[in-house]
């Protein structure tokens, strides 16, 4: 067997632009109240099979031939695709044809709009394209409504697909993001460690080079409120800025600084350099913690049409989760504040352990 140089083989390879997969149609539908907008994509090969496009019979379909087949294609789609809501159909009207490229070749892109009799709550999609021609054809649906996206596989001839379209889906999105926020702070050990490093001494006061318990609940409460509020304000600001792409920081940097913040806050309890500036520390480092939250939100994505609401829900979830933990732990800490064991052993040594953990994370995140 003759060997060709690898470079030539690479040229041959580059010529392969498409893969032979089974027949798919792509249906994108967006619902706004009683108006529907969307597009159906049908492979040019399937257009040929269903309505005929190769007018000159030369085995190739050109753009000119496809355009000429446009009206026939629109009639075919109108006869094989129906959107109905509450029993009445939403008639389709088509816009001019375009082309889209996909993994298996060129597709005819046929945009459409539809108007339903009333605001859409439940949508029925009757999809019967290629029925009788290619039973393996499937419609891959992406349905967007009220900020949420659903996908489904539609099988021609097997009855309509039914999809719920909730305007209250915005409310569902809000709840979903709220829960995500709570879950995130409860699993965000680094955020919690930072916060608690600042809160542990809130029940104490530094006098004469020693830690003494505060006299009553009021100073402790004030201290806790100041730290928590500063942290909350700061991370809310940067979370919002990052979520809307106003400011972006590389995640390696933010994660490393978050780890460093833990070290600083914990060490501050042992060597109180900024003993009474914990509020400021909470605010300054809180700004960076906000970027950490934002990268989680970026993973989830904000749904179009409900972005602000979902962001607000996420942030609120973080605050609720945070308050829950603080409310659970601080009363116990307050009760312990008088004990010498707390002041001399638990708080300093606990802070030391936290500082070590922070150092390990700092090394991991910055270096590895």
């Amino acid at each position, binding site marked *: 067997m003759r060997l060709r140089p690898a470079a030539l083989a690479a040229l041959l390879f580059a010529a*392969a632009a498409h893969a032979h997969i089974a027949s798919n149609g792509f249906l994108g539908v967006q619902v706004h109240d009683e108006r529907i907008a969307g597009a159906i994509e049908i492979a040019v090969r399937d257009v040929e099979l269903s309505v005929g496009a190769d007018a000159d019979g030369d085995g190739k379909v050109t753009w000119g031939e496809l355009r000429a087949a446009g009206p026939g294609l629109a009639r075919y789609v109108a006869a094989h695709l129906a959107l109905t809501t509450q029993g009445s159909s939403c008639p389709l009207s088509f816009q001019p044809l375009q082309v889209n490229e996909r993994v298996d070749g060129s597709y005819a892109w046929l945009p459409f709009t539809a108007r339903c009799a009333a605001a859409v709550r439940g949508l029925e999609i009757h999809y019967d394209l290629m029925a009788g021609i290619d039973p393996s054809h499937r419609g891959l649906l992406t349905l967007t409504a009220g900020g949420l996206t659903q996908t489904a596989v539609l099988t021609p001839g097997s009855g309509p697909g039914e999809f719920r379209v909730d305007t209250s889906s915005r409310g569902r999105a809000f709840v979903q993001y709220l829960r995500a926020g709570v879950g995130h702070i409860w699993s965000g050990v680094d955020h919690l460690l930072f916060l608690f490093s600042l809160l542990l001494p809130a029940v104490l006061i530094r006098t004469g080079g020693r830690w003494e318990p505060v006299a009553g609940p009021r100073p402790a409460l004030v201290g806790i409120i100041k730290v928590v509020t500063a942290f909350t304000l700061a991370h809310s600001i940067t979370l919002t800025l990052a979520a809307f792409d106003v400011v972006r920081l590389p995640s*390696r940097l933010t994660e490393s600084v978050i780890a460093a913040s833990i070290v600083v806050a914990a060490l501050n309890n042992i060597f109180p350099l900024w003993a009474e500036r914990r509020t400021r520390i909470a605010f300054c480092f809180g700004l960076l913690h906000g970027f950490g939250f934002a990268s989680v939100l970026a993973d989830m994505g904000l749904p179009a049409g409900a972005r602000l609401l979902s962001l607000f829900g996420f942030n609120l979830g973080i605050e609720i989760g945070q308050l829950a933990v603080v409310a659970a732990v601080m009363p116990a800490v307050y009760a312990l504040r008088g004990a010498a064991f707390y002041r001399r052993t638990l708080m300093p040594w606990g802070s030391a352990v936290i500082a070590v953990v922070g150092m390990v994370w700092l090394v991991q995140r910055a270096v590895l």
Partner: protein
Amino acid sequence: MFTEAKNTSGRPRLIRGWPLARVLLGLCVAGFATAAPYIPAKDAAVLADLPLGARHRAAADGNGAAARIDVALPLAQFYVARARATGDLRFLGYAEAALLPWLQRPPVPAAVLVMDATVQQSLHAFDASLDELDRALRVQPDLPQAWLTRATVLRVLGRYPEALDSCAHLAAADPAVMVLCTESIRALTGHLRAAYDSVAAIPAQALPPEVSAWRCSELGEMAERLGDDAAAERFLRSGLVLAPQDLYLRNAYADLLLRQGRAAETLELLAGFDSMEPMLLRSTLAHQLLHDGASDRARALLANAFALEQQRGDVVHRREQARFLLDVAGDAPAAVEVAAVNWQVQREPDDLLILLRAARAAGLPDAAEPARQFLREQHLEDRRFGALLGAAP
């Protein structure tokens, strides 16, 4: 607690996510990247090349396939042959469409059932295929094609005793085919050497070309499993000379070359076949061996194609998908999941191989336990498994 798994955003997590879900999401995102429809600049721009057999049929009912069985059957046969020659799955849909009117009108003729069983087999819908074959054979027990297809399907499913039974029914129709059928199964149940010698002893000149090509592919596989790569190569090359359109032979030869690191020869072998996912996968692996950077586009193409098939619930290319995940995407845990799903559908030596390899790479020896058990029960020998069967690392 102090070692953190990183997720895709770089945000350290203490919980490891689902690897497959992550990969699929990534695949889907890559595949369904923002659609960008456009208007071509020229009317003469070619948008599609129509392969033979994919033209519009002007008549409402195509060409009378629904009314005449002597049109429907040859048409379906033609489409199945086109599917085999081009690797284009759409043709199987067209074959199905030609047969559907007959399948829906009882009593269904046995010939229609057998033809549809062939279509289902090509789609890897093996249970549906067996069901139709059994129905056909109840109506007409004397159908050699049905017995042969049945033997093939049962063999892919790993149900060897039943497969042997099906082979035995071919004795009257074609003794040479019966021997090939039987020996290829005995080769999987502890008699590899004896079966190999038996089949090698059949005089090739006496056989029609398709059967001779089949003999070559069986011998090629047996020789490879015996560890005799040189003989395997000889047989596979002879087979390709007899049947250059045989995609199974071509892929088998490509796998042999890849295993030996002969990447440039692999590319030459597969030149012009890259529109088929199994071939494209092997080309990509060859390009990876050559480190020539040509594999990036193919990687995206394959990822997209597999993601679409996954969304549709198709199982035809699961083995290739598992190999893609393991050898191209480098995602061993996802590869194990797909290989395990593939194992539920089919049980050929290559399915065993990918499951064993993926489980080992992912450090999940238990995932391959069903495969090892199957090996032991059937006394299946395959030198390619070699070190994969050793004690867990």
